């Protein structure tokens, strides 16, 4: 008998626990009992094997039970989470992808983070219109059906909120990879290159910028230089094989590969070509990065190379005791492809190259693994991403030396988890 039966365990899993400490205590106790269990002889026959279980005797659900399924109830903790104190209300707010509990690279849409400025609106395909105007030969209106007739591309990209890890500028604040790094998702998008839509309207030679805005009340207008618009921007209507979710811009959103998530306009309704940037609220008041001397950077579009260990992490304590341990995490770069990720367990005194699950793709998330043998002592775990430009993910100290503490956005520093001897992990800063 090494664990409680699945049927009773199930009832307690979805809520995790009323306090993390209680949960960790229980987990550590179980881990202690398992010390060396990998090679040990069983104390006695396992009733999960020796007794006939109900699922091996009775019947499961029919194929008509679930036309569109949700995860099994035991995975009830793998959900988006809100942090109430971050914003004034939940309408113009953020939630967080449960990256601590996911693996691979594709984010399930149902738990992929949301960021709205006036809520997630409901916009039917029949009601959808896309306007292209400004410095074009012919201002155009497209219906959703029109968009489906343009040549398509399918590409996988990460979308990272400019504010991801922003609460950590001043110090260690939120205790979990979901909260410190979960304003990100990575999806396979299908849509029409923005270039084709602009070419259909005919960009005039004096056109240098485009304004993109959404159909929601916030509109979320942003200015994008024409070179980027004509390069790799995608007007997407499918993600991970199916229609966009309502909260991710159904029926049409903009993908701006490698650039801050704010520019990925949801419910995209209008694209205007102009000869100057518009300096909208979302590129003046917000998404500008204040430096120590009080001046602020604007147009900090690219998301730099970044990584985080997702397990072990504060929400993913080690419960199995010493021995083989999979250290895993995510890495990404808006400047290119991830070529390498290094991992340290001693706070950066020495580093080990991790294994990428697949060769890095441009502007998409990579999964890394380090197959480690844990001796049961404390660890200071970090990961360090390197991209195809040779950029090496910096420490928080290095970023602060340049930017100060008030940048809010673009915090791509190396994250440290202090893994204690009992397997519990904590968000810390180190010298």
């Amino acid at each position, binding site marked *: 008998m090494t664990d409680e039966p699945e049927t009773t365990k199930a009832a307690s899993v979805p809520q995790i626990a009323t306090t993390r400490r209680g949960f960790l205590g229980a987990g550590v106790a179980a881990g202690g009992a398992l010390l060396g269990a990998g090679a040990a002889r069983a104390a006695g026959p396992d009733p999960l094997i020796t007794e006939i279980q109900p699922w091996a005797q009775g019947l499961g659900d029919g194929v008509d039970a679930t036309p569109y399924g949700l995860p099994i109830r035991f995975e009830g903790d793998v959900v988006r989470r809100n942090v109430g*104190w971050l914003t004034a209300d939940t309408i113009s707010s953020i939630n967080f992808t449960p990256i601590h509990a996911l693996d691979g690279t594709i984010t399930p849409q149902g738990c992929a983070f949301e960021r709205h400025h006036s809520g997630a609106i409901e916009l039917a395909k029949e009601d959808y219109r896309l306007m292209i105007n400004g410095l074009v030969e012919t201002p155009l209106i497209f219906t959703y059906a029109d968009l489906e007739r343009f040549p398509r591309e399918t590409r996988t990209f990460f979308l990272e909120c400019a504010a991801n890890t922003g609460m950590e500028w001043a110090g260690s604040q939120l205790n979990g990879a979901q909260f410190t790094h979960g304003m990100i998702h990575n999806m396979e998008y299908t849509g029409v290159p923005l270039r084709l839509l602009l070419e259909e309207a005919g960009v005039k030679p004096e056109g240098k910028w485009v304004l993109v805005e959404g159909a929601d009340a916030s509109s979320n207008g942003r200015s994008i230089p024409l070179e980027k618009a004509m390069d790799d921007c995608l007007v997407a209507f499918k993600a991970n094989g199916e229609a966009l979710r309502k909260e991710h811009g159904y029926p049409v959103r903009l993908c701006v590969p490698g650039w801050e998530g704010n520019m990925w306009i949801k419910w995209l309704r209008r694209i205007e070509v102009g000869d100057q940037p518009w300096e909208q609220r979302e590129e003046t008041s917000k998404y500008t990065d204040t430096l120590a001397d009080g001046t602020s950077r604007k147009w900090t579009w690219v998301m730099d190379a970044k990584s985080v260990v997702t397990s072990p992490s504060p929400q993913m304590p080690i419960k199995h005791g010493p021995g083989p341990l999979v250290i895993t995490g995510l890495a990404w770069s808006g400047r290119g492809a991830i070529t390498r990720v290094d991992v340290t367990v001693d706070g950066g005194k020495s580093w080990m190259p991790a294994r990428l699950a697949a060769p890095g793709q441009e502007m998409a998330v990579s999964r890394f693994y380090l197959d480690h043998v844990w001796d049961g002592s404390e660890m200071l775990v970090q990961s360090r991403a390197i991209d195809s430009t040779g950029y090496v993910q*910096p420490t928080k100290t290095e970023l602060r030396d340049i930017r100060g503490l008030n940048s809010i956005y673009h915090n791509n520093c190396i994250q440290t988890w202090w893994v204690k001897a009992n397997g519990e992990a904590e*968000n810390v800063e180190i010298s």
Partner: protein
Amino acid sequence: TPALAEKLGLGRAALPEELAAWDHDVRPDGLGLPEGSGDVLTGEELFSEHCAVCHGEFAEGVDNWPKLAGGMGTLDRDDPLKTVGSYWPYLSTTWDYVHRSMPFGNAQSLSDDDVYAIVAYILYSNDLVDDDFVLSKENFTEVELPNAGGFIIDDRDTTELPLFIREPCMTDCKETVEITAHATVLDVTPNDTTDDAPAAGAAE
């Protein structure tokens, strides 16, 4: 060039009425401003009626809702207060954003004259104009906000990339490591999936 690309013939020409209905954006040079005007006192009444419940009677902000006035000279300090007066570079952004996206929950309900008046009141709340000021399409671009010169274009290519494109250290990178900060000291992380409040006391 884009203009010479072959077209598919999809979509239809937009009509003038459609362009007028959706194209409201206003640029720093005033392009896009409609005819109209409004004064501070009219703006004060409108602000009290439509805006003050969240932003305060003096645009000073209520609870966690945004402060629109104050904070002059705080940008290089801890916890800078970023408002229209202390931070925003262009008045056009205020007009454009209020007109399209405010009030929160009832956007696009203000007339052009209403927006001129409210923007005039926001300027007054920031001590940037007198109480008899009238803002109009004609004098709009004469208003320069205090932090107009406070922004630089992304300079990471010169200030950061030369430092961070490097060969990283792999062994004997430092002699000692000390923990200097703990997230659990703050204890502001929600506990379970039903808890979206801080675990014990908000950070601010």
